[in-house]
Every structure is written in structure tokens, then in C-alpha cells.
């Protein structure tokens, strides 16, 4: 949502939003533009901070349908404007065209915000969990998002290659100790460190490992940091 902080709304759209809210509260049966779009955004808002709720393709398509409808209605009205010689009702038609235009823009904006926010969350997944999407998350993404993730992954890797292979995702906290004591929370099996040493990570055992090895395992929840 950060990218959409910026331009101030103009008067008309402010009035529109307030009306929207009012109608939602008072007369939920009245059909207003932008309801589905608000649903989209609310869905994301409710989701916990680092999670991605399933892709709401249906609502997205519904919003697009609405935009189409608005666009066609506007087309019709523009046609009417041009055909009609009588300028008395021009003002009204112009107002309704303007109103519909704002509604359309708002819908578009909600759509962009929805997708952008999801992309941001995906990005933080890449930084926290590495280049492979876990299966549970994979099922909540749309195809395009998966493509985007893969290409982001490639770009990031290429960038890090330029840096002599410095892996930016590893050193995320200031290092205090070279070795840390960890307790194993899940049965992980054999784990091979960068030095080539294989350690058997069984549940409830405790080990001493270099910090760089453990960081991503701690983030995944396999290990837990303990103090001596």
C-alpha cells in the first residue's frame, strides 16, 4: 500500500468515499460501485502480517467486470452527449460520466494495490525462506505471482553474483557470537554444513553450530536458540 500514499484526493472522490461508507452502513442492499474492491482490500488487511491469504481471483474478476460495465455505460453516455443537440441535460450527463470515471479509477487503484501488496509479501518470503516456495504457500498464489517470484529470485541471484557471491539474505542480524547453541524442535534428519560436516538433527537434541548455518533454520522453525 505504500506506493499508493501520495496524491491527495480531490473533493468529488472524497464525497464519494464518504457516501460509500454511509450507504454500506445504512442501506447495504443498495448497489454501489466499489464494494467488491473494498472487500479485496479488507481481506488483505485482515490477514496476519507475514502471511499471504489465497488469491481471490473471483473478486478480482468481479471488480474487472464492474469496471467494464462502468466503461460501457460511460461510452454510451459519451455517445449520447455527442448525438444530442440539447445542451440542457449536458451537465447531468457530464456529472454522471465524471462520477463513473472516478469509480472506475478507484476500482483500478484497489486492484493495483491488492496485487502490489501481495507482491510485497512474496518478496519478504523470498528474503526469509529462500528461493523455493513452500508447498503451503504455493497453493495460495496465482500463476502470474509464481512467475513473478521466480523472476525476482533470478534477478536477486544475479545481483548477488555480481557481488562476488555475497549472500545478502544470510547476515540479517548483527553477529554477536560465531557459534550459537541451538535446540532442535523438529526431526530434520541429516544436515550438511558449508564445511562439509554432517550433523544429525533429531528432535530434542542440542547442538553447537556456526551462526550463519543456523539462521535460516531458526527462521524456518527447525531450531531454537538457547542460552548457555
Amino acid at each position, binding site marked *: 500500500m505504500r506506493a499508493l500514499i501520495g496524491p491527495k484526493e480531490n473533493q468529488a472522490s472524497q464525497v464519494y468515499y464518504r457516501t460509500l461508507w454511509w450507504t454500506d452502513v445504512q442501506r447495504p442492499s443498495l448497489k454501489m460501485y466499489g464494494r467488491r474492491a473494498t472487500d479485496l482490500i479488507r481481506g488483505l488487511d485482515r490477514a496476519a502480517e507475514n502471511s499471504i491469504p489465497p488469491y481471490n481471483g473471483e473478486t478480482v474478476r468481479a471488480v474487472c467486470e464492474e469496471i467494464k460495465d462502468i466503461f460501457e455505460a460511460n461510452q454510451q453516455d459519451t455517445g449520447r452527449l455527442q448525438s444530442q443537440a440539447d445542451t440542457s441535460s449536458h451537465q447531468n450527463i457530464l456529472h454522471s460520466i465524471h462520477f463513473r470515471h472516478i469509480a472506475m479509477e478507484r476500482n483500478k487503484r484497489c486492484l493495483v494495490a491488492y496485487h502490489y501488496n501481495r507482491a510485497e509479501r512474496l518478496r519478504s518470503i523470498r528474503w526469509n525462506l529462500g528461493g523455493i516456495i513452500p508447498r503451503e504457500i504455493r497453493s495460495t498464489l496465482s500463476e502470474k505471482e509464481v512467475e513473478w517470484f521466480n523472476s525476482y529470485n533470478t534477478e536477486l541471484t544475479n545481483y548477488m553474483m555480481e557481488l562476488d557471491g555475497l549472500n545478502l539474505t544470510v547476515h540479517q542480524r548483527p553477529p554477536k557470537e560465531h557459534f550459537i547453541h541451538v*535446540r532442535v524442535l523438529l526431526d530434520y534428519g541429516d544436515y550438511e554444513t558449508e564445511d562439509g560436516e*554432517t*550433523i544429525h538433527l533429531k528432535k530434542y*537434541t*542440542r547442538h553447537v553450530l556456526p551462526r550463519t548455518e543456523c539462521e535460516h533454520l531458526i527462521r524456518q522453525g527447525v531450531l531454537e536458540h538457547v542460552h548457555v
Partner: protein
Amino acid sequence: MILDNPKDLSQNFYSYLLNKSRSNREHRVLILCATDVDAVCAVKILLHLFNCDYILYSLTICSNFTDCIKAVKPVRETVRSIVMINCGAAEDVYGRLKANKDARYFILDSRLPVHLHNLYSGKAVRVLRKVDASEIPAFDSVFSQEEDEPPKKRARTDSSVNGDDDDTMSQSSEMSGSSQVENIRERREKERKKAEWEVNRKIIESNYYKNVSYEDSSAMKMFELAHLISKDDHNLFFWAIIGLCDMFVQRKISSSEFVKKSIALQGHVIRLTHNVDVENRQAFRITYGQDLALRFYRQWTIFDSMCSTPYTASIFRTWETKGHQKLHELLADMGFPLSQCKQTFSAMDYEIKENMVEWFKEQAAQWNLPDLISSGTFLASYGFNQKFQINDIALGLHACLTLSDTSSPEENVHEALEILSKEDFKRIEYALRLGRDQLSIFRNIVQSAFEERLFVGMNTYLQVCLDNISSTGNKFTGRPEALIPLALFLQQTYVVRARGNKVSKVPFVLVAELQPPSDDPDNDWVYFVGLPGHDNINSGVTNFMGRAFREAAGRVKIDIEQWSFDEYTIRTRKKNKITFLDALILIFSLPSSGAV
């Protein structure tokens, strides 16, 4: 190989591990830790030492030897050093764990006797304790050096000894008469000697393995090592004392032994606490002195404490109302107002708290309670307010390890390690609360044991069967390891109440059917804990019940399993329970049973 004194420990154990880890970056020590308080304290000290020198380790918790085998299996090929704390002394570690040939085993166990294979395996197995050389059988008497030679060869050598190599054929036919007879005689002689040697070996081994006893807390040994390499501090000392007190409280060492060891530690007490800043609120100190031998009296009311300490509970019979009255009388004699008795210790009047020990001393003589005041207990104090008896802390940690039957033993050990981690008395208070809960459970079970007449006593044998289903509300909850202190409590109360000479010599067996864990409802094990006679526990502390169990099981041919590292704790299937008990009774009623 036996590493006797601390100097040996530091050279052949610690320095060895240190050099190994320096020369080989991938060297990792596998630590196998048992689930008792002494082991937890010893591990804490050892991990502290390893941390100072950046020695890499992997720690696994084992409740019995099968767990040890499972823990070694995945790293069999790569492991080079295995340290076993309070496990493995009684098993043939080299033969059963089967790690690769270069692996070295270090066994730090307070149990005796040590398995003979461990003692005689040369450099591969190093036992870190003092072993009385006179008690170990000689190598030749238990291990045979000879190899059997096939008969033909022997005949040929005989003939070559006799001289002619060329005419063996003719000579052998000539010698067929006399030398063959000689051969046969020699062979028979050798076989007879071998059979005699076997019999002898069996006798020696059974005598050697007869009695299980404990000596030297592992945590103390680790502390001595730390002291020698100058890495000790008051935290390590605190942990070591907890280990020692645990051995005393669980009756693994006698009180005289405990007193002897405590006095020997006075030097450390003075050295490590003299420079503590007295004005610091949270300063941690350890002191040694006279104190009441009542469990948790500083956290509980006097009354509760006296009902829960086995000593006073058995003398006053606190499970009966008469006992309560007697207790009240004693307290009244001492000058405690009734209202004060019902308050927790911290809420009592300052005067009473100050003079309590004195008053108890006077009354102790009158009421014939010699053991009420212990001549020396360790106290840990945090600042001015918080004082804990380290015996209580040991009991609390034991409860932490055994009270909950829902969490696994490994989780409990990790929790105990966390409790010891910081000088934070809040965590210690939590452990003490668990200890009190456990003692309350024991108290209730003792009460119901007397009310429901669960004690089945014969002249030669005493048993209590705890059935989780039928007892009215005083169920046993916790892990099987908690059965041992419960058994001690039950035995003490019975013996002191019965007041017979014979009763105190009679062995005691506690039989318990525990609630099966939720993830394993078919689990129908019955647990047995065997204790020797009460006198035995007070003086020499040797436990022969393991052998008795094995003999009984052998007679009726049922399978028993040792569920912890101690021989006298076994379990078997429910269906075998009655047969096994009958066999046990039979063994003990035989006049000349080898067990006693």
C-alpha cells in the same frame, strides 16, 4: 582404562577432547545424558567448560540404554568421542553401541559396579571414577586368553616335539597306543580345567554384579575437573552441590557419606563466596550450616512440611488424625501459636523464624527425634530475602523432571537446564513449587496406602501395589522415575510404624500400573521398583533387587525389561504381573536365597 583422580581427568579426558577439537575442525563430541538431576547438573558444568573452549558438541537425552543405542546409530561412522553421563556404566558400551573403531567412550557414572568389559577395554573406553582395585576381579579370572586348538594339530605338535619329522607316519602308528591315551588324558584335563574356570568365572561375576550402589556424584566430579583447570566459579559450585544433594535426597548415598563429602567442600564454599558483594541485593551466596531437615519448610507451612517429610511423617503417623494431634502438641510445646503454624514460613513472625532452629533442637531431644536437625545443609541465598535449602532445590528439579507425564523426558531435561541457567530465583521458586506438588501427591498416596491396606507384608517381603484405576482419588501421576522416591517414602513410613526389628531388614517392592500415554493406549506395562531393607538403605546402600528380579523372571520364564539405567527398576506386561509377583515371593521366602 580408569581415570582416577582429577589430574587424570584433566589430562586424559578434557585435554584429549580439547586437542581433538583443535586439530580437527569437524570434531564433535556426542554427549548422552541420563534423566536424573545429578546428570543434568553434570551436563550443565560440562557444557560450560565446552563453551569456554569452543568445543563442539551434540547433546542427546536418554532414559534407558535403548535410547543410547538409538542416539549413536545415525552418527556411528563419524563420531569420534562419546561422553556418557550417568548412563552406561553397567552395560558393555563398546560392544553394544557399536560405533566405529576410532571412537572413544568416556563414561561418567555414579553407579557401581562398572561392567567388566568397560574396565578392560583398554584405551577405547575410559571410566571417569575411582574404582576400588581390590573389588575388581583379575583379568585372567574373567576373560579367557587361550584359544582352542583343533585336535589334529595338537597331535602333530606332540609328535614333532617327540622328535622325528620324517617318520611321522610310522611314528604316529607306533605311538598310537600310549601317546593317544596321553593325548586324551591331557585333553580331558584341559577341558576339566576350563569347566572349573567357567564355574569360577560365573561365581566371581555374580558376586561382582550382585549389588548396585552409588558413589561420587558426577556433577561433583565435573566440578573438581573445572577446579583443576581453573575454570570454576560459584555457579558451577552451585550446580555441583545440587548434584550431590540429589544423591543424598534420593538415598543413593548414606547420610554419613554425605556429611563427609560436605565437610570436604567447605574450602570451596569459603573460597568462592568470600568476595561476594554483601550489599548487593541480588548477590548469590552459598552457606553451610545447621538447619532443620524438613522438606520445603521455607516455602510451606511448618505443619505441611512436617507431614511431607518422610522422617517426621513416619514418626508422627501424620496420615492419621491422632498423628495430627501429636504434631500439634509438639508445636505447642515448642511455643508456636496455632495461628503461626498455619502460616507459610515467609509470613511468620520474625522472632519465631529466628529461633525456630533452637526450639526444634530442644524439643528434638525430648521427643526423640535425632535426625530432625541436620548437622550440615547447604543454603543458597539470593540477597537478603530469598533463602533456599539446596536439598529442596534438588527435590524441586527432580519433580520438574518427573512430575508431568504429558511432556517427554527430553523436554523436561531441557526445562531443567533452563531453570539452572541463570541466577534467577524465580525459576527456582517454580521448581520448588513443582517439588511441593509432587510431595503432596506422595502424601496422599501414603495415606490411601494405609487406609486401603495396600501394604502386603510377610516376614520376608513387603509390597505395595498401586492400581491407577481403582484407587479413590489419590492417583499417581508422573513419570516412572518418580516411583523411586515414592517407594522410599512408603517403605520408611511402614517400617517406622511397624517398629519391628525384622521389618527393617525386609526388601520392599512397589508395583504400579501407570496411566498409558495418550498416543499409545495399548501400553500395558506394569512397573516394579525394588528396594532393599530399610537398614540397608540407611547404612550401606547396596541394592540387590535387580538380581532378584532377574532370577524370578528366569524361574517363570517371562520377559522383563529394564526401563531406566538402574537394575532394580523393571517393567513387564500386565498379564505377567501375578506370576512374577508369586515368583518373587517364592524367592524371598526361601531360607537360603542367594539374593540376601
